[in-house]
């Protein structure tokens, strides 16, 4: 039986061009492809694991700060003595640690590894990426410590003192350049949808950051132009930096794990361009009702509503790909986290679009409802997908399986149940908080008394999530330290383990 692949002489021909009904995937092909994949993974192992470890570290720091801040809101005497731990500073530091720390570093990890994999190219000069990682980590450390010790800026997402900014610029500059360099050296002729998202994200984020820092800090704009720029930046960090890489990751992990191509590639392209066009317009919905021109708020409401298009496209795609394979969620940690995140994406985006309508915003704005929405987005969607990516990627980079199934399950359930409690408690509490705020006959004290139990529920949820993060960090450290069964046959050539205990 002639193999259609080995019969040809072109060395660069993609070895995927073969029918699945072709019973012969020759052993030689398999070994060659596995070796190629292993070489790619090995080339980016160092820097990718460096970024990944940094991400996990800041996740723990951010979780600790989160729980402290959350407790302070229902128990104001908690650690109220030192200036360094006052709620405002802890809150700002928390956001820097989880936003610029965990999430951004996970985004960079995802971008680097997947670009190498999808381009079928090894990473060049990997050592320079260590400098980028060091720079970024320094930036986050300066941000967190600077805020704690009194240099916070009170600009949402940009609270970091100005001396931290150059480190972020250097860090992302190197990463973006490297991602593009890998892309340009690609051996895989086809440009998979995940690569589109990654390329766009590493282009958009530096532009966003530079414009924001320019117009808010270096040449500060007048008055309300600052919050306008601020929310263009803040919303687009989520929508044009985190979201594309997370959605792209789901587009890679889901088909890879279940062994089935994406349901409709055409929809994925539609989704990408619709995201690119509409998301960037949505940012002003954070200022509805505020002292900004009415046309600005309206434009953002339109942009937010139009986001239904890419979100539905992505949702259909993922769902139809998974259809008939939901039982695989029992077997694969990566799939569980990723599918949870993908479902959360659809949900949080639909919620966000509705929330941007003026009637909704009138109630939900200024309340904990918005906080619930934000966390469903950056945690329920983005973080869960990146957890999925880490569970898939790390064993392939280290050549070692995860040490404990139990800890993985613990992590998953703590995170899933935690974010659900978080979201439900603060959505309900926040909604009624908003209704009461809009009723001047309700004294402010009554509103505060009302919301406290929901804030307590949020603390419980946060503690649960933190337990999950500790499990995750423990697994991560154990894997890097060499505990856990070796992946047989090399890092990416998965073989069935011997019948076992």
């Amino acid at each position, binding site marked *: 039986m002639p193999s259609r692949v080995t019969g040809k002489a072109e060395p660069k021909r993609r070895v995927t061009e073969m029918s*699945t009904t072709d019973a012969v995937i020759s052993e030689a092909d398999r070994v060659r492809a596995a070796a190629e994949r292993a070489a790619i993974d090995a080339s980016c192992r160092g820097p990718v694991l460096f970024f990944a470890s940094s991400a996990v570290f800041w996740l723990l720091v951010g979780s600790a700060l989160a729980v402290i801040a959350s407790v302070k809101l229902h128990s104001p005497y908690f650690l109220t003595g030192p200036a360094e731990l006052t709620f405002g500073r802890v809150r700002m530091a928390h956001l820097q640690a989880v936003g610029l720390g965990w999430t951004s570093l996970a985004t960079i990890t995802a971008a680097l590894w997947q670009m190498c994999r999808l381009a079928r190219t090894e990473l060049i000069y990997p050592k320079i990426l260590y400098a980028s990682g060091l720079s970024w980590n320094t930036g986050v450390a300066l941000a967190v410590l600077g805020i704690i010790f009194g240099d916070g800026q009170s600009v949402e997402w940009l609270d970091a003192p100005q001396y931290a900014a150059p480190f972020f610029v250097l860090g992302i500059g190197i990463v973006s350049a490297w991602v593009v360099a890998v892309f340009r050296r690609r051996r895989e002729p086809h440009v998979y949808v995940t690569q589109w998202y990654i390329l766009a994200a590493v282009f958009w984020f530096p532009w966003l950051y530079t414009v924001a820092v320019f117009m808010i800090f270096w040449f500060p704009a007048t008055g309300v132009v600052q919050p306008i720029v601020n929310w263009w930046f803040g919303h687009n960090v989520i929508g044009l930096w985190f979201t594309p890489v997370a959605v792209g990751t789901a587009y890679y992990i889901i088909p890879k794990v279940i*062994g089935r191509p994406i349901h409709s590639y055409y929809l994925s392209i539609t989704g990408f361009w619709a995201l690119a066009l509409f998301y960037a317009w949505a940012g002003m919905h954070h200022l509805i009702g505020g002292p900004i021109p009415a046309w600005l708020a309206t434009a953002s409401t339109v942009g937010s509503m139009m986001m239904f298009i890419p979100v539905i496209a992505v949702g259909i795609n993922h769902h139809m790909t998974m259809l008939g394979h939901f039982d695989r969620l029992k077997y694969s940690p990566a799939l569980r986290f990723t599918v949870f995140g993908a479902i959360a994406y659809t949900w949080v985006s639909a919620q966000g679009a509705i929330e941007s309508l003026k009637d909704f915003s009138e109630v939900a704005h200024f309340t904990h409802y918005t906080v619930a929405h934000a966390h469903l987005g950056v945690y329920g969607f983005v973080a869960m997908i990146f957890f999925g990516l880490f569970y898939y990627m790390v064993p392939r980079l280290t050549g070692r399986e995860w040490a404990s199934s139990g800890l993985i399950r613990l992590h998953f359930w703590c995170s899933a149940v935690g974010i659900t409690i978080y979201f439900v408690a603060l959505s309900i509490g926040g909604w009624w908080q908003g209704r009461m705020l809009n009723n001047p006959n309700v004294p402010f004290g009554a509103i505060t008394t009302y919301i406290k139990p929901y804030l307590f529920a949020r603390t419980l949820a946060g503690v649960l999530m933190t337990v999950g993060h500790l499990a995750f960090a423990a697994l991560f450290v154990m894997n890097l330290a060499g505990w856990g069964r070796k992946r047989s046959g090399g890092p990416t050539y998965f073989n069935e383990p011997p019948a076992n205990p």
Partner: protein
Amino acid sequence: MTSPLPTLFAAATAANDGTVTLTAADVVVLLMLVGSIVFFGGAAVLALGWAFRNGQFENFQQGAASIFGPDEPIGEPTDSFPGQRPDATPPRNLDQSRPEPDECRAG
């Protein structure tokens, strides 16, 4: 720098009897808006045209299969809990009626 633009945006005011007077400033704003629409819309049309000519709309599913390989072919799951094998049965619902990439090529 004093920009004339603030006055431009404040230019069109409704008179008390409900009529609106269109000033030169309004015209500039409208031109900028229309110009932007023409520019971006035109770019989009050109891009769509390029895409059609360049064959972007043929054979979508080929791209979807590109992430697989002989070592991780379509039909084999690639992740599981440590110490377990993934359920190895081939995926159901694989669209058998869709032509495989090889069958699209002549010979």
